[in-house]
């Protein structure tokens, strides 16, 4: 990996790549600052623009929008008490009270520095951890890969919001949707019911964009317009002085660590990391008494952790092809459009591309500082933009994006129907991330199971007994399912007693 860095830098230091990094980060910050857009929709919105690009600039654009949007969410959280992205929800607790005291610039200063530090450390973690993880997985055969994918799916489901059963159901629906079309081994059509358009299956991106972006618009159409707090008085970011960090560096380091560790775990996401980090800061920070009333440590806890997740979430995505969260699932689907299949072979086959992506991710996080300083004043008036303008634009861009995937009207119809399905299921408390991740991982799960059964002559018990790594992974999977179940049973018993 390190040997490929000079070539990677040559790839990065082109006008196209640098402009992509700059524009992507700008776009990410602006889209992230707009309440209702969120990182997943932001990444989905830029999808059509990547189709005219080479592999490296396309991935860098997605990464820049991803990292930029996570930071951008803090701008609206602090200035109007409405998080631009769910990841910044915890930033509201202390950011908005500071802004109400006339310290909006200072609050955004703390958020900017914490975000940049969190993002930079996560870029280093990505650079160091992903190749190691990929090298470890390189020795995996079908049985181990099946066990690994099953574990990834289980982790995603067990930590996703809402009930475990509905999470598992969403995952199963996703896996089923992925099985529609030609059988991966025999090629025989399944569940196509005579419709030739279904022979190639449901397009992943059409489903993902429908499920996330379109259903979000539908939810907002059905709701009353949310009351938005008054825009705080803001005259530009004021960065905290070095002296102001006294007694806060430990909190920053802890938050960055929490973000990275949670980011690497499949399925957790930045919002979970931000809340866990905030709770930990509230418990252990020397300034914990001020949490919730405008304490800078509260902003640092949330923002350092949510930006630290970005690199961490990319570790399993790039190294194993297992998306860390819904955003990385969208990115994974987009990468396949560019002929890139993330997974352990990617690092081996394309070291220059991977080194360029990782180095580019580092630069993106560096860019957050100057661009945050420059853009926050421009982004602030955008927060006054009415929701209808943004949501209509989202639908138009979704249509453009899906048209370019295959140029097929059927995919546009699939996107529309996926939007309706997503809307209906979300109303019933069914989480959407497991559905999408089930769709991403379903084909690998099926193929490795069937290949494994050929190897073991149809004996499934040999998966656990004949392959020690797979056996260990199955044990962890059982644990990942049992822990939340036991917790739910205990909570129910406590409720019944109390």
């Amino acid at each position, binding site marked *: 990996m390190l040997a490929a860095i000079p070539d990677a830098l040559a790839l990065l230091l082109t006008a196209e790549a640098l402009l992509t990094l700059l524009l992507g980060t700008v776009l990410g910050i602006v889209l992230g600052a707009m309440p209702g857009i969120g990182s997943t929709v932001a990444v989905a919105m830029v999808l*059509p*623009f990547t*189709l*005219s690009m080479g592999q490296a600039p396309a991935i860098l654009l997605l990464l820049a929008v991803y990292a930029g949007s996570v930071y951008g969410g803090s701008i609206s959280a602090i200035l109007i008490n409405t998080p631009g992205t769910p990841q910044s929800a915890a930033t509201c607790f202390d950011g908005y009270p500071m802004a109400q005291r006339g310290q909006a610039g200072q609050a955004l200063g703390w958020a900017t520095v914490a975000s940049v530090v969190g993002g930079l450390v996560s870029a280093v973690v990505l650079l160091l951890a992903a190749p190691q993880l990929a090298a470890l997985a390189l020795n995996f055969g079908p049985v181990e890969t099946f066990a690994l994918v099953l574990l990834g799916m289980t982790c995603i489901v067990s930590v996703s919001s809402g*009930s475990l*059963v509905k999470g*598992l*159901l969403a995952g*199963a*629906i996703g*896996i*089923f949707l992925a*099985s529609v079309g030609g*059988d991966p*081994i*025999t090629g*025989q059509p*399944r*569940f196509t019911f005579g419709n030739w358009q279904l022979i190639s299956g449901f397009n992943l991106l059409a489903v993902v964009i429908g499920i996330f972006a*379109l259903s979000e*618009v*539908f939810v907002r*159409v*059905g*709701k*009353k*317009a949310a009351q938005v707090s008054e825009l705080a008085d803001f005259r530009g970011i004021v960065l905290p002085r070095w002296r102001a960090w006294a007694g806060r560096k430990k909190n920053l380091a802890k938050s960055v660590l929490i973000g990275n560790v949670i980011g690497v775990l499949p399925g957790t996401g930045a919002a979970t990391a931000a809340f866990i980090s905030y709770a930990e800061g509230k418990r252990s920070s020397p300034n914990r008494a001020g949490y919730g009333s405008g304490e800078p440590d509260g902003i640092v806890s949330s923002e350092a952790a949510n930006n630290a997740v970005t690199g961490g979430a990319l570790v399993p995505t790039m190294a194993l092809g297992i998306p860390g969260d819904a955003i990385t699932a969208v990115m994974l689907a987009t990468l396949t459009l560019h002929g890139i299949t993330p997974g352990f072979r990617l690092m081996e086959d394309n070291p220059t591309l991977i080194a360029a992506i990782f180095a580019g991710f580092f630069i993106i996080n560096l860019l957050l500082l100057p661009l945050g300083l420059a853009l926050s004043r421009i982004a602030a008036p955008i927060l006054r933009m*009415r*929701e*209808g*303008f943004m*949501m*209509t634009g989202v*639908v*138009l*861009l979704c*249509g*453009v994006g899906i*048209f370019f995937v295959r*140029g097929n*009207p059927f995919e*546009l*119809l699939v*996107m*529309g129907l996926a*939007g*309706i399905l997503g*809307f*209906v*299921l979300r*109303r*019933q*408390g069914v989480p959407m991330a497991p559905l999408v991740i089930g769709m991403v991982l379903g084909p690998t*799960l*099926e193929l490795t*199971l*069937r290949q494994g*059964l*050929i190897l073991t002559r*149809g004996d499934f018990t040999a998966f656990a007994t004949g392959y020690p790594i797979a056996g260990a992974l199955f044990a962890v999977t059982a644990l990942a399912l049992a822990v939340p179940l036991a917790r739910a049973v205990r909570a129910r018993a406590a409720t019944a007693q109390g």
Partner: protein
Amino acid sequence: MPGLLSERVMVLLAVLIAAAALLSTTFTAEYAGLGAAQSPVFFPRIILGVMIALSLIAIVQDLMAGQRAEPVEHWLALVVFVLAALVFANAITRVGFLLSAAPFSVVALAIFGFRHPLVIGVYALAVPGSLVLLFNHVLKLPLPTSPFTHWF
């Protein structure tokens, strides 16, 4: 039992029935003759079985918890918007991007509460028009055009 008629239970019931119906189609002669794991329906059968079991558990859980879906404030607006989005998606390749996006934008903005005709008109022409200019002429990724002219 009013809980049985709740939206949550009805939707889960629909998932259960759909999974059961799909599972039954895997036992037709179309897939017969291929042994165990190498059958194209081996894996889908497992998944559909899991879906049936999970939706049953979820129905029981929802009946016991008595939770209801969050109410929708504007059903009519939602239905009109969904239909408009489906028509837009279906019309892109038939009448071109601009001719499908402009009317959709008018409907969408009206649903979102915009009433000023100038604002609606400018947005409906400017935003889809900019996208056509950007993709067709800058990025050289042509969006579908109408049967009337190659310009849009």
